């Protein structure tokens, strides 16, 4: 039994291909079920996000299994297989395990450390379970992927610091205000960065949004988007005392917010801290404002500087994370390898015990009546000891076999020598 991964991602396929290959979330369990039904495939999980489509499978034979999976994807989406093939990557064995653990730990993401992917992988697994497409190999495998991701999350700081300007703004706001619920943000001007930062703040609990713009209609439109209120541009400084966070990005050539305005506002709001983010170039907010007590002013370079530092930090943490993944891959593969030999060991033991019991019964039929209880007992334990002694060396040898590359061959010989029936690994529960 081997783990195989067939898929494509933002690294190998443009969005035009990815959107064609994506599976709708509400039919994922059906898809997983039919993938499991393919020849050579024993278990399957389908992950389909906007950045990647991947099939995780437990296959009985490498080549046939992989071809079946690629064929299925092409056929399902009615894409010629030749068109699909250049974008597809295939991992098998160690590489497959490592790949999935890295994906779940967000080491393979476009933004390394982004937190959504683990949830998406968990969803994919749940869907596969709904379609009863997983059994004990992938069950164990997926749980191991989750626990690896959790280790990475708790033992490294990979996801802790913001690596985009708008997230850096949220992070700073958190260190100034703590919880953002109940705080008010004012957006001055418009622009993509501005909107992005405002959106992140709202997602992180900011409840009140005020928008001001030279064109009042635009302010109204943006305010509606956030369920906030629009403020006239020539009067926005009157509202400063209600505002905790300001995001400014106008096209104005000079400052639109002056130190005196903020100073007055700070007095009115009894020195409650204020956080100003100036994304405009040339700058909208007088830099001298940062010198006021309890006022924190960041311009776009300041935020960029923080992002750069965080990125370096994240790269360092990613190295630690890779080490954790390596450890977990090793431990999973050890289990997977033992999976091949344990049924043989068990069957061998069962067979020997059967022989022992049968022979013992025969003997007892002849002389059993003359024996005392104690004698019966020692006969029982003697035969058991013989079986154990005989099986001792083969058991050790078989366990060692798990580490060898041609284990299948040797295993086959052993089974033939002892006349063990063909075993289906799937039916062997842990």
């Amino acid at each position, binding site marked *: 039994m081997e783990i195989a991964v067939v898929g494509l991602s933002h690294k190998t396929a443009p969005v035009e291909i990815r959107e064609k290959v994506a599976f709708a979330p509400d039919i994922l369990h059906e898809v997983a079920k039919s993938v499991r039904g393919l020849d050579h495939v024993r278990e399957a999980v389908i992950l389909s996000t906007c950045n990647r489509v991947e099939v995780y499978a437990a296959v009985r034979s490498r080549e046939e299994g992989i071809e079946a999976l690629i064929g299925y994807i092409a056929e399902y989406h009615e894409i010629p297989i030749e068109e699909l093939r250049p974008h597809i990557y295939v991992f098998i064995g160690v590489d497959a395990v490592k790949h999935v653990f890295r994906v779940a730990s967000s080491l393979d993401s476009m933004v390394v450390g982004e937190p959504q992917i683990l949830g998406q992988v968990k969803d994919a697994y749940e869907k596969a379970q709904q379609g009863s497409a997983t059994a004990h190999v992938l069950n164990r495998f997926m749980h191991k992927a989750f626990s690896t991701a959790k280790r990475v999350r708790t033992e490294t*700081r990979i996801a802790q610091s913001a690596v985009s300007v708008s997230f850096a703004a949220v992070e700073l706001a958190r*260190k100034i205000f703590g919880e953002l619920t109940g705080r008010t943000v004012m957006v001055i001007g418009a622009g993509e960065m501005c909107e992005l930062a405002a959106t992140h703040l709202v997602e992180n609990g900011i409840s009140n949004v005020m928008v001001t713009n030279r064109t009042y209609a635009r302010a109204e439109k943006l305010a509606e988007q956030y369920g906030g209120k629009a403020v006239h541009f020539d009067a926005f400084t009157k509202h400063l005392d209600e505002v905790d966070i300001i995001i400014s990005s106008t096209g104005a050539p000079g400052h639109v917010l002056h130190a005196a305005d903020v100073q007055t506002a700070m007095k009115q709001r009894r020195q409650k*801290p204020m956080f100003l983010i100036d994304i405009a170039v040339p700058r909208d907010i007088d830099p001298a404002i940062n010198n006021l007590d*309890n006022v924190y002013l960041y311009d776009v370079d300041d935020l960029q500087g923080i992002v750069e530092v965080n990125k370096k930090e994240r790269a360092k943490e990613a190295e630690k994370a890779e080490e954790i993944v390596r450890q977990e891959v090793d431990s999973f593969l050890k289990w997977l390898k033992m999976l091949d030999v344990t049924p043989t060991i068990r069957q061998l033991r069962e067979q020997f015990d059967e022989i022992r019991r049968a022979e013992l019964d025969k003997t007892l039929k002849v002389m059993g009546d003359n024996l005392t209880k104690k004698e019966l007992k020692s006969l029982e334990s003697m035969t058991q000891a013989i079986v154990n002694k005989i099986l001792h060396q083969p058991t050790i040898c078989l366990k060692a076999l798990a580490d060898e590359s041609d284990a299948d061959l040797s295993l086959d010989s052993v089974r033939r020598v002892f006349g063990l029936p063909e075993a289906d690994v799937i039916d062997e529960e842990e």
Partner: protein
Amino acid sequence: MDLWLLRIAIIVYLIATASQLAFLVTLKAEVRKFASWVTWGAFALHTVLLLTRLFAGGYAPMATLHEAYSFFGWCTLGLYLVLLLRYSIPSLGAFATPLALILLLGAAVTPSDIIELPPALQSGWLPIHVGLLFIGNAAFGIAAVSGIMYLIQERQLKKKKLGMLFHRLPNIEVLDEIGYRCLTIGFPFLTLGIITGAAWAQEAWGTYWSWDPKETWSLITWFIYAALLHGRMTVGWRGRKAALWAIGGFACVLFTFLGVNYVLPLILPNVQSLHIYG
């Protein structure tokens, strides 16, 4: 017996402080758990130590400098633990436990004999007066500690240099809130401590107030905290300014506690404080 307890207590305090600092560096959940247990253990052990002295001496163990240090440290650690129930600030321990440790070390280097209580101190006022003051002092101590944390964090935010402490320290708002909360705890205790002191002085010496250096300095301390409280409540002082005042106020507390006895005699050899250690 209590000397041994003291030595063990110091070791446990050291381990608590070290593990709190280790948590600050590593941010490991197991380290935090360990540090928390050891800190509670240190407090429990210290409580036993105080009780042992209470029964051995037959008086509230607050009469000598040694006992004052020890009680002060115990109050500080206790207040920190109480605050933890309300505020979830994992890094506070790394700053609060060193203060408690220093106070306990103060106890370790001062003569620890159990004394024959002089008649002037054989009064029910002793535990009330001293107890109130040191609970207040502990609150001011924690306020100063959170003030230091505030200044570190605020400086990083202002200078836009986010060092390794940036992620480890909490937001400045909650640090300011702790400073305020401790001030509102400490001030009534200080006020009552001074009033009970005056009442006791009237009973023992026949005068409420004798402008003794200790009394003068406690009044100065009171005025500093009164000004800070007033500033915070009505003027809108907060943040950096309030943090600096809290630190300055605590310096004054320490001078009243120790400086009056140790430093002042060097400068003004003729002025002697009537009061014991404090």
